[in-house]
């Protein structure tokens, strides 16, 4: 090929930040790929999309999208996004962050944003550990797994993230792995257009650390695990969707309608202003 090779999604990447820092076999690049594919297929105005991310490997994603981007402190991406969305509701604010950032340090902000049914999609890259800092355990690390802070095996039960999201009030809950690229893209599109709080858990390989520490040395090995263990089942009970080495239940779990925070806020403000007009307190 002698002509200039330009990837069809090049315009969605922040040129001077590419190449990204992610390892060979890491699934974060796939999440980036699916995300910008979704933006492209929906033809959303990139000037009106804000990507907010936290600290961690996946947290670097806001640097790579050619959108308004903010890289917050650890765990606070959702709280930051709350401020952005409420201040400028016409913007499409998306949170993309990791399992530790969203559910350990950021757990409180997650459950409240879901409870409020805030109009933001949250995409969680779940790689079962804290990758950026070298592979420590996190709230989604499977029982018995080896990580650098569980060298004798993990003795903590992990979260079932789809259950947590559903129980907190999210109106759209889905789980995919980085193997399910097309369906993940479709879910992202759904989440971007849905009113209310959407949550997508993406199981992603971390072959350098979690994988290597737990007998899956390459990205291909981890993807093979996903292939073997995934089972697509839509609208099953999220409470029964714990991830085990044998089974990763994927699909859409919840897709319901509930008035969003934005809608209720607008109604409240309209009513408050009407009352003032009538001279009432």
């Amino acid at each position, binding site marked *: 090929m002698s002509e200039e090779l330009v990837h069809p999604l090049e315009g969605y990447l922040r040129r001077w930040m590419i190449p990204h820092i992610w390892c*060979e076999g890491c699934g974060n*690049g796939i999440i980036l790929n699916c995300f910008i594919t979704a933006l492209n297929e929906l033809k959303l105005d990139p000037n009106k999309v804000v990507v907010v991310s936290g600290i961690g490997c996946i947290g670097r994603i806001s640097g790579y999208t050619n959108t308004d981007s903010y890289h917050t402190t650890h765990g606070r991406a959702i709280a930051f996004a709350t401020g952005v969305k409420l201040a400028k509701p016409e913007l499409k604010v998306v949170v993309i962050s990791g399992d530790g950032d969203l559910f350990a340090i950021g757990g409180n902000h997650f459950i409240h944003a879901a409870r409020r049914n805030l109009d933001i999609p949250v995409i969680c890259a779940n790689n079962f550990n804290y990758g950026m800092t070298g592979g420590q355990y996190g709230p989604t690390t499977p029982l018995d797994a080896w990580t650098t802070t569980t060298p004798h095996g993990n003795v903590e039960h992990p979260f079932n993230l789809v259950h947590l999201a559903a129980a907190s009030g999210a109106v759209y809950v889905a789980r995919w792995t980085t193997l399910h690229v097309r369906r993940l893209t479709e879910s992202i599109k759904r989440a971007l257009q849905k009113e209310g709080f959407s949550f997508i858990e993406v199981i992603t390989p971390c072959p350098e650390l979690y994988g290597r520490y737990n007998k899956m040395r390459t990205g291909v090995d981890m993807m093979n695990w996903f292939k073997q263990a995934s089972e697509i089942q839509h609208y099953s009970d999220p409470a029964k969707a714990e991830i085990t080495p044998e089974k990763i239940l994927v699909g859409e779990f919840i897709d319901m309608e509930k008035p969003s925070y934005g809608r209720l806020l607008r109604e409240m403000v309209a009513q408050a202003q009407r009352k003032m007009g009538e001279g009432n307190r």
Partner: protein
Amino acid sequence: MPLRIWRKPLDADKVKLPRAEIHIIKDRCKGCGFCIELCPRDVLEFSEELNERGAHPPKVTDESRCALCSFCQAVCPDFAIFTVEKDCAGGC
């Protein structure tokens, strides 16, 4: 009557399968192997050459076998491979 199965679709001569051009941005590739492993038609394999990063980018074994599913493009974490439908107006 014994069941006869036609394997070749009856309108095979009229329907044209899309033909693909596979473009590989060699120096972006990290050699993760996802595209090679997951291509449903085994169109890709590791090349012998080394790119700027010291990885072996993929190479196309037989572009005519490619069905333009574009899974490689969708699953590449590094935006190193993409497909384009070949313009077959003049015959492919």
